[in-house]
């Protein structure tokens, strides 16, 4: 690891931190301007105005806007994300279980998407121009242009209702806790099959299209042809040259996509009843649970920045020439 490399990484971490600071400041400002009041749910026939004011004031901190901002920032930087108005629990305690579910679900689906799309792209390129290639391109186009919730509803209707093969929603059976560990895992996998399939179908065409084009370009490039004429084995050409050169641009896209899906996919979570980040963010906004809104947005920001950073780092490790461009 060179000195230049370390300096650039430190610089990138520092700028990421500044971006996060900017994000939470922006959220703070937006929430100050946002309509709604968390105390609305306390309105009742008997609640006197004095008591109502008392309840209202309990949701805000005293002081000027600047004082509030710096108080908020200080708490944030010291790791105190506050207490959720709705759950009466520390914000992180509310977020972490949801993040875990989203992380497991999205992570596994993401890996499936990447592997499958690479395999399909490879098959497609190997059969370029043939019927299988043309069919795959068309199918990818259909999947790409179908909204994921439509795909989800169709899959649920066919596989969960008509054929009755999979559960309609949820991530585990009611009695999951009574099962042995391997059965618990299988049970979760069984419940996750349809959501994972829907999610895979939704993003697969993007990676497939990128990879197919990259593979096509790389495989037909002069240096690959030259390597073949030199008698280099096909597996060596593939692992050493084709794969690194064709996958690199896809990693950049995947990095951003992964960050986005880590902050939850509301539609998918609602359709399949997955208790993940997407639903939490929306419910916190709808119920004016400000600390939770800030916490969720912060986590979403961290996820996007982190995954983008890891993606860039991976690209640099694959191709050192990218160090200057990407890490700046």
């Amino acid at each position, binding site marked *: 690891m060179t000195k230049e490399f370390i300096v650039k990484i430190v610089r990138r971490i520092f700028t990421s931190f500044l971006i996060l600071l900017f994000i939470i400041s922006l959220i703070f400002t937006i929430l100050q301007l*946002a*309509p*709604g*009041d968390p105390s*609305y*749910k*306390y*309105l*009742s*026939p*008997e*609640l*006197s*105005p004095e*008591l*109502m004011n*008392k*309840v209202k004031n*309990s949701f805000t901190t005293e002081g000027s806007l600047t004082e509030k901002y710096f108080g908020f920032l200080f708490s944030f930087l010291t790791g105190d994300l506050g*207490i959720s108005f*709705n*759950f*009466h*629990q520390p914000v992180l305690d509310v977020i972490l*279980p*949801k993040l875990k579910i989203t992380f497991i679900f999205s992570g596994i689906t993401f890996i499936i998407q990447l592997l499958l799309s690479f395999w399909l792209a490879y098959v497609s390129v190997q059969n370029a121009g043939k019927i299988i290639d043309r069919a795959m391109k068309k199918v990818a186009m259909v999947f790409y242009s179908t909204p994921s919730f439509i795909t989800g*509803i169709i899959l*649920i*209707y066919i596989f*969960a*209702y008509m054929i*009755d*093969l*999979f*559960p*309609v*929603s*949820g*991530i*585990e*059976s*009611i*009695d999951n*806790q009574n099962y042995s560990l391997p059965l618990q895992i*299988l*049970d979760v996998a*069984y419940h996750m099959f349809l959501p994972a399939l829907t999610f895979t179908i939704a993003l697969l065409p993007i990676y497939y299209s990128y990879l197919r084009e990259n593979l096509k370009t790389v495989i037909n490039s002069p240096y690959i042809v030259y390597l073949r004429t030199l008698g280099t084995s096909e597996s060596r050409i593939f692992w050493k040259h084709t794969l690194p050169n064709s996958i690199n641009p896809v990693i950049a896209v995947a990095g951003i996509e992964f960050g986005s899906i880590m902050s939850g996919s509301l539609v998918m*979570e*609602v*359709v*399949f*009843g997955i*208790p993940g980040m997407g*639903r*939490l963010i929306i*419910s916190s906004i*709808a119920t*004016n649970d400000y600390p939770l809104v800030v916490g969720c947005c912060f986590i979403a920001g961290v996820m996007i920045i982190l995954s983008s950073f890891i993606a860039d780092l991976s690209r640099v490790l694959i191709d050192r020439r990218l160090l200057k461009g990407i890490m700046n």
Partner: protein
Amino acid sequence: MIMRCYYKRFTAVLIIFILTSCSGDKAQRDYVTVGVQSDVETFNPLFAFQSLEGSISELLFLSLLRHEWNEKLGKLESYPMMAESLKWNEDGSSIFIKLREDIYWSDSVKCTIDDVMFSLAAYSDPDIKSRGVGAFHNYVTDESGRIDAQNSFDRISDYELVINFKKGAAASYFDLDYPVIPKHIFGTLNTSQILSSEYNFEPVTNGAFKLLSWQKDQSIILGKNEKSFLNSDSTINRIIFKVVPDYNNRLLQLKKGEIDFLEDIKPEDAAGIEEFDNINVEKVSGRQYDYIGWNLIDPEVYRNTGKMIPNKFFGSKKVRQAITHALNRREVIDNFLLNYGELAVGPISSIFKSVYDTTLKPLEYNIELAKQLLKEEGWIDVNGDGIIEKNGLEFRFDLKIATGLPRREYAANIFNNNLKQIGIDANIEFMELNSFLDGLFMRKYNAWLIGWVIPIPVDLRIQWYSDFERTPLNLSSYRNREVDSLLDRLEMKLTEQERNQIFKNLNYILHDEQPFTFLYWVDNIVAYNTRINNIYINPLGSIHYCWEWTLK
């Protein structure tokens, strides 16, 4: 060859697993699954603000009384539950409570009268911010509304208590109607700790059911409390509240048998569900109505100066009556609600038979009569542009609606056309819910379309009493001395007949004055699997007292 073998094995394992999983859930159905849209935030009845939280806390925590809906008389009847007996003194200023001695908390501690005293005090404590804050005006309280335990409670023994109410207060059983929480758990915490206590999520309970497990945003599993006096051998073993956020998904699960009980079915789906042999469909009528609210004062003048002058459009009773006559409310009932609704005449529905005035009839849909009434008020289309005017002011206003409810969007479009027919231009403006509510509570709007759920027992004070400061939900800025006087009388000691007559009078006045255009009562359509027996769908809540349910 090896690969093909692996594929076969994998497929076989998968198929076996799928088949066993599919049959496993349905084979051992000693439970009832209730489909719900969203999860609860707490199990502590102190903070049960949502309807589902209230329903679940009723199953987990006992109250001194239980209420039953008398369909014939259309009123609520109260009976002792935790209490073995309840006895009012002669002038109704105090009540003697004898508690049952066979009630235990789930940690095996015996439930005593100290729990009752502690609970009532906790509900009234403004620092705890419970759902009962401010509701203890019949008790002797301090300035902040907190119960003065010393002057309110005479503790006789571990199971006996006398509660002394405030002098002249018209106390009733509803003043005792709070689920009791364990003193030995919450009494050791200070007020700020109660709000975030772990016992709100892992409760120590004394009800017909106890909490078995809670998978947040997935399911809540309640198990039968074998020690509870409410349960019998036939009481169902488990009730599972399954969180399924998507409506279509919930419906599919009901049809598939994964969900046994579901509320809020859309009218267009009800007929389809009725065709299933294993599903019963029923409805709960008369709890929720939609209305168009008219601001009776000028919102701009009120906002700028605090003065209340009559609204230039809706300040007149005749104009409001004319608009109600112009709206084809029946069309919404017929075409959107598919007859799962009823025209509204006022804020009290026909299910409350004892307080409902059957002589009142809904204002009929009559465009000509509407035009006539407007003309009498001086609203005429002078310049022939299709919009009526008075003193140079054209009758144009914004009708505000919160987004997200198709029924109201559908109705607003119909009403917009209806109003055009009488020369009124209502510009429908859809708003995000929080922005909508902000403006509504600040009395910024001339007109808005929203709904209301009528509480049981009926309470009209919150919407119709003139003191805006103390009735923040009087959104129409309605002021009527006669109504105030009637509402004040309801706070006094009255016979049941007198009380009923007052409600009838109130309904009559509000029907006549039309501070709202009361549109229609909307039924809550409930569907349940026929394997559930002994189920009584009633206005108190569909899962009310579900320990009486049995399974076929």
